[in-house]
């Protein structure tokens, strides 16, 4: 459920970008997929796993390469392939009602398992089912387990039902890491668990995380030098996927930070599909994943209105770092457990409402928008209540649109555009009457969206 690979989308939004960090990310991702493609020859092991609750440092400490099916699915969405993949999966008996990432992945697998760079992905040596923040993950890997002749190891990450991490929860995850996950890696690689090596990876993670947070928080400035949703999905790319804990990630985030620092110094707005946003008219917070099949079009609906996303929850699905969490090498397994439990969709509803309200205030947003995706109950079930609660707490208007992740049938461009236009108009009118973005409580646009 995460970030885009700017190398491969049909009309990649990144093409208009000049930033060197973007080029670097392209190379990193390209190399990673190339390594994966060569794995059958080189003998390197690979594990399929999920973005939320990923254990990249642990994998890397065993020299195991991660494959993230969510990323492949979103890539398929951006490359215009998801429609056929989903159709194939539905033909094979998968319900039209369920998460389209799963169906897209099944369709891709049945169509030769060719990854986003055009090279075939290796079969997994291990399915690492990190059950973090989403029940569908469990089903997804049960489905994959039927397709591959490899072991599955389950890491059940408890939900923060009461809004906190307890000792019992931490112990449960650590116990599973010790008694299930680590032995599974030892078995497939023939290597012993090396905690010192893991610590080195974790220390590197924390360095990259510092720079990522700095970049995300740069959006508190006016004008914001970044778009923290559409642009943000690129920024989270390396750290949410195969690169957390690597020197490459440190290099990427250092460079990205330097670029954003420069934009800030020069008072420039964010990079957008057509160049650069010159006048920041609206600042909004976004909840929910983006739509990938019309990513660029969706983004443009914002930039055409002069709207910048200053904070988003989607960029926290693979880890919430901006409230202080960092991977801590001195407590290697505990820190991995806390990381897993802290991912956004593993937070309870009151915490999600707090987080959004905090973003609206701290990022001086004019309002917030929810993109409710049909696929994802984890995100979407209850978002209408989030909408009302955040409006109530912040006094800023909320907007609501509906689409899907990778099923183009559920992206109704005209509906969404109309809704967004009226939303931004409403903000403008209120500014007129309130002389500033500090409107009083409002009913906002609480109706459903593109049905």
């Amino acid at each position, binding site marked *: 459920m995460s970030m885009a690979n700017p190398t491969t989308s049909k009309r990649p939004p990144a093409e208009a970008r000049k930033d060197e960090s973007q080029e670097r990310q392209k190379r990193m991702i390209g190399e990673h997929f190339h390594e994966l493609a060569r794995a059958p020859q080189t003998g390197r092991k690979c594990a399929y796993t999920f973005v939320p609750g990923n254990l990249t440092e642990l994998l890397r400490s065993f020299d195991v390469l991660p494959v993230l099916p969510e990323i492949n699915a979103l890539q398929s969405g951006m490359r215009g392939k998801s429609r056929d993949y989903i159709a194939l999966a539905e033909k*094979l*008996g*998968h*319900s039209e*009602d*369920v*998460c389209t990432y*799963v169906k897209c992945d099944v369709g891709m697998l049945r169509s030769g398992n060719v990854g986003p760079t055009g090279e075939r992905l290796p079969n997994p040596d291990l399915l690492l*089912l990190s*059950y973090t923040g*989403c*029940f*569908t993950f*469990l*089903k*997804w890997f*049960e*489905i994959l*387990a*039927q397709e591959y002749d490899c072991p*599955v190891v*389950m890491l*059940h990450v*408890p*939900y923060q*039902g*009461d809004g906190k991490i307890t000792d*019992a*929860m931490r*112990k*449960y995850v650590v*116990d*599973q890491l010790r*008694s*299930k996950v680590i032995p599974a890696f030892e078995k497939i690689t023939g290597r012993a668990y090396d905690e010192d090596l893991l610590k080195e990876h974790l220390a590197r993670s924390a360095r990259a995380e510092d720079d990522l947070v700095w970049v995300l928080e740069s959006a508190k400035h006016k004008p914001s030098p970044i778009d923290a949703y559409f642009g943000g999905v690129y920024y989270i790319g390396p750290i949410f996927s195969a690169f957390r804990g690597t020197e490459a990630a440190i290099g990427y985030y250092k460079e990205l930070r330097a670029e954003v620092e420069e934009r800030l110094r020069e008072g420039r707005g964010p990079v957008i599909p057509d160049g650069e946003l010159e006048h920041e008219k609206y600042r909004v917070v976004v909840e929910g994943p983006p739509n990938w099949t019309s990513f660029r079009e969706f983004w443009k609906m914002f930039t055409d209105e002069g709207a910048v996303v200053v904070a988003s929850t989607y960029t926290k699905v693979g880890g919430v770092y901006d409230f202080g969490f960092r991977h801590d090498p001195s407590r290697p397994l505990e820190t991995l457990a806390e990381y897993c439990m802290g991912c956004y969709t593993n937070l*309870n*509803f*009151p*915490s*999600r*409402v707090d987080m959004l309200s905090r973003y609206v205030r701290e990022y001086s947003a004019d309002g917030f928008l929810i993109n*409710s995706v*049909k696929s994802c*109950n*984890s995100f*979407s*079930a*209850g*978002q*209408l*209540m989030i909408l009302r*609660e955040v409006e109530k707490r912040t006094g800023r208007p909320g907007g609501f649109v*509906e689409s899907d992740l990778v099923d183009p049938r559920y992206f109704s461009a005209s509906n969404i555009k109309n809704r967004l236009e009226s939303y931004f108009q409403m903000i403008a009118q209120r500014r007129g009457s309130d002389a500033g973005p500090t409107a009083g409580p409002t009913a906002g646009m*609480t109706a*459903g969206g593109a*049905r």
Partner: protein
Amino acid sequence: MKSAHGNSNVTELLARAQALHHDLRFENVRAWKERNGGLAVGYLPVYVPRELLWAMNVLPVGVVGGGDQVEIIRGDAYYQSYICHLPRSTIELGLNGALDVLDGVLFPATCDVIRNLSGMWMMQFPDKYVHYLDVPQDFDTGVGGAFYRHELLEIAGALEARGARPLTDAALRAAIAAYDANRREIEALYELRRREPWKVPTHELYLVLKAGLVLPVDEHTMMLEDYRRLVIRDDARRPLDQARMLITGSFCEQPPIGLIKTLERAGCYIVDDDLVAVHRWIRGDVASLAPGQPPLDALVEAFLRNGVPSAIRYIDQDKKGRDLVERVRASGAEGVVFCAASFCDPALLDQPMLVGALDAAGIPWTSFKYAENTGQFQVIREQAGTFADSIKLWSGA
């Protein structure tokens, strides 16, 4: 002759079960609280260890949505159209005061919808006890078991703080015994239905099972005993030429009773199912599971070892679908009807895998979806009728 339990004929018994089913204000729960001075705590599907609550003089109350009896006025303002029906009718019941009698609600880790509903409930009803019961997906005693045990003790502590009786081993043993008796009685009814499905029509069994969501366990066990005794001697219940079906996928949002009747009228004997699944979630007795250990250990072991293989539980790849095939064989079912709530992620994601297992075993199946408030059954009737006919034709050939 009236039995010691008070039910002299099936009609009367079913009328009582029906009345409980229709009583969405939980008057019976209210009355129990007045009589016993205990708390009442609701639980969402699928499974919570009711023994723990009962041992603390807390009445466990199954909340399975509003069925086809609740008009959704505000619930739709909480849920998009592509989310199943159960949470919207549940929130409707909460908002219209029907659940005021409950001192709290447990939300077990069934799916993301129920999980999210737990947090919504916290925000909507801040004075009530709300707990997300995270059940383990790791089934080792020392790992998932230790976590689950801790969860249970936390619930016990929270209930005690709200005025429930402290949890004691003796009371928990007694509660486990009461639920074991209930499970045995339910199993006996299922066994009778497998043998003589004409004696136990599922639309009746369904009501009797649903009564168990709100009745104190002993009372429910008596109702089950009465029902079995009465139907066994009811000679008017004669065999018909029906196809034997197992229905699966209805473990959470419950189908309207009209749907069950439709299947039966379309020529199906339902000989196994996962309706009102809390009752059959644990297979066999709990009491004997951790001999010489505290009863809480037995409750934990029951979940780890004897929980039914289900869509909401992680199943090792080599076992996936095996249980369904075995249940088909054991019940003598001639076909399977996948009958899941629309937009039910766990059931619908599971289905292709189960279909694979059935196909490999040469077991015919059909599938459709429902919502708890579905009112039109014509399509289902035709589909089920055709399926039943084809099975009868095939088995007669």
